[in-house]
């Protein structure tokens, strides 16, 4: 049981400002475009540029590097708003923010100056986080990509899978094995790779169930040569860097899930008031009202868990347990809410004329990426059994 800090979630002025900026853009722009972007599998390039202009591409990044320096709570609030508009755009933005934050935390000054302002300004279309491989998902330490030092260069060989924005990223954090004869996790290092580096080959675009406007590709490194200075953090520190980044990323995905589900619930309520059956609005039937009440309650609880985790992160307190609790709870309840929204819409929930169908597809990934529900439960179980 986590103790000590309890969040009561009255946003301060800065947080309110970030939240309303995100809300306005989500409602006025993203929500209008989301169905088309999804249908056409169209990468939201213009939207990302506009979001960078609004200062949302480095929400929790210091102003010195072009960020908004608005903190982890603002970041979570912004993602909850944006993903009500378009979940694909939001995940792309979330990964950009995660990569920027990772460089802030582990990069040297030169790396920070070189990459972070490019991300926060939107001059880089996107940034990528290249950890997963075909045989290495939840068990990230088992990755097989290798990096060997050759003179003044690192030479990388191997493949990555499920890389969000991998084809359009200006910079990618790439994990590879640099050491042998140590434990799997201790043999991994992290590198900053620039888009377009010779030997960086982009594979096919994944044809996904949801988040169809976000780009997801496989990457192959064929004797990809990068400078010695591309190492992020220390040699052998890679696994720790990945785990640190994912702990924060989980708050982001939990926020994204809540946003998708909030949109689904809003639409379900609207539809339930409008649609009639047996002479009265279906929203007047307890069977429906109670499903919606449960979703509303669970999403309220999810928001509090997410904001608590973000609050811990912002205060510099440990948040591994809180982040995993937030992610597993928020994403599973969000899936439930989107399922209810489809059910409330009946046949209309199953066709793409209504957004409920897209939300249902989009939300499904949230219990999988950046640590499956099962991995979150392993983390929580380990923490509570300490």
């Amino acid at each position, binding site marked *: 049981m986590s103790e000590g800090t309890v969040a*009561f979630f009255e946003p301060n002025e800065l947080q309110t400002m970030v939240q309303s900026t995100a809300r306005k853009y989500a409602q006025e722009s993203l929500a209008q475009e989301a169905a088309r972007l999804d249908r056409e599998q169209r990468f939201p390039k213009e939207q990302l540029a506009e979001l960078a202009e609004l200062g949302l591409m480095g929400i929790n990044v210091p102003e010195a590097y072009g960020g908004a320096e608005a903190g982890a709570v603002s970041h979570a609030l912004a993602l909850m708003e944006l993903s009500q508009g378009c979940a694909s755009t939001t995940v792309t933005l979330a990964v950009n923010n995660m990569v920027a934050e990772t460089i802030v935390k582990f990069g040297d000054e030169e790396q920070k100056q070189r990459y972070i302002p490019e991300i926060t300004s939107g001059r880089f279309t996107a940034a990528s986080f290249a950890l997963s491989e075909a045989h290495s998902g939840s068990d990230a330490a088992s990755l097989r990509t290798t990096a060997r030092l050759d003179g003044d260069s690192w030479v990388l060989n191997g493949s990555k899978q499920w890389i969000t924005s991998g084809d359009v990223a200006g910079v990618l954090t790439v994990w590879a094995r640099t050491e042998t004869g140590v434990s799997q996790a201790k043999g991994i290092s992290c590198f900053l790779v620039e888009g377009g580096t010779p030997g960086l080959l982009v594979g096919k675009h994944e044809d996904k169930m949801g988040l169809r406007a976000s780009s997801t590709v496989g990457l192959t490194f064929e004797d990809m040569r990068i400078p010695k200075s591309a190492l992020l953090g220390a040699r052998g520190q890679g696994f720790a860097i990945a785990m640190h980044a994912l702990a924060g990323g989980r708050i982001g995905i939990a926020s994204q899930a809540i946003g998708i589900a909030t949109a689904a619930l809003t639409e379900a309520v609207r539809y339930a008031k409008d649609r009639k059956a047996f002479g009265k609005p279906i929203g007047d039937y307890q069977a429906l009202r*109670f499903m919606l009440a449960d979703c*509303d309650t669970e999403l309220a609880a999810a928001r509090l868990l997410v904001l608590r985790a973000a609050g811990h992160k912002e205060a510099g307190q440990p948040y591994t347990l809180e982040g995993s609790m937030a992610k597993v709870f928020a994403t599973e309840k969000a899936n439930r809410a989107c399922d209810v929204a489809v059910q409330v819409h009946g046949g209309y929930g199953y066709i793409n004329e209504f957004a409920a169908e897209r939300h249902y597809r989009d939300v499904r990934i949230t219990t999988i990426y950046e640590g499956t529900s099962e991995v979150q439960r392993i983390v929580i179980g380990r923490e509570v059994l300490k």
Partner: protein
Amino acid sequence: MDIELSEEQKLLRDTCREFADRELKPNAKKWDRAHEYPREAVQKAFELGLGGVAVPTEWGGAGMDNIAYALAIEEISRGDASVGVTLSVNNSLYCDPVMKFGTDEQKERFLRPYAQGEKLGCFGLTEPQAGSDAAEQRTTAVRKGDRYVINGTKNWITNGPVADAIVLFTMTDLSKGTKGITAFVVETNTPGFLRQKSDEKLGICASPSCTIFFENMEVPANQRLGAEGEGFKIAMGTLDGGRIGIAAQALGIGVAAYEEAREYSKVRKTFDIPISQHQAIQFMLADMATELDAARLLTLRAASLKDRGVRHSRESAMAKLFASEAANRVCDKAVQIHGGMGYSKELDVERHFRDARITEIYEGTSEIQRLVISNALMK
């Protein structure tokens, strides 16, 4: 946005935890079996200031807030859920409406000794035909000069068998529906106040409850709480606060069951390893911990809104619904993790399982909470 508990809140929580570990936990099984009201333990809890945690000191209370109150009820209920509800009823359902609607004269007589923990209060709303549909009141109060004559029946009155006074809801005008409901505050030694034998229940067996008959009970008009016809509003507002108490009680029961299951899983072995090393058990514990944290956050959010004087019907309903259902799931899993031992009265977990069940029923069933929440959602 992230607020630390104040030193005062932490101190009360820690004091209650220590008290629960020392005075309640070791005896709870015995009281449960004997269906015994632990008068002395309740008295000791009163001495810690738990009679009126959120009642201002000028009226004999501890002068703290509802966050402190929720933390206290959670910790007390972790030790003994029966004592938890005894205190919750006195705080939320008795002291709170007297504080809010009583005259100074009424507060002197009906609040101060109760907030100070010298006396115990109860709350009379439910009737045999009026549970969730509380508007169906049949107890009548007929004005006769400067007095009212009250006749009727109340049931499931927690603290009823041992209370010194009751906040009582009656019909002063049957033709007006909810607008005809009027509240009184009445001492239980008033002639015509007739207690029946204590109820035999599934759980919270150390919390006495009973049916009460009112036979031509005469009550002076100056014991009316609020105006004639204001009773339903008083009852509903009071329950908004009471639900925070029950959410906290449910949470305390859930935490007790979770902690016992977690510790048991570390020592119990199957297939040569502690069962805590089996993923099936680990994942249950992970879900239990997560749901309890979510329940606590919802509960403290509702308490914080009440402290700030913001309307919190929806948030209290969410806290109560989620915490009570989560507590039942947690207790069910705790029994499962204990295996056969979970079914035995030798361990506390069997009692937690029974005690948790009522939290989905009293002070508004889960179904009533869903009505409240959906009404707010679908306005």
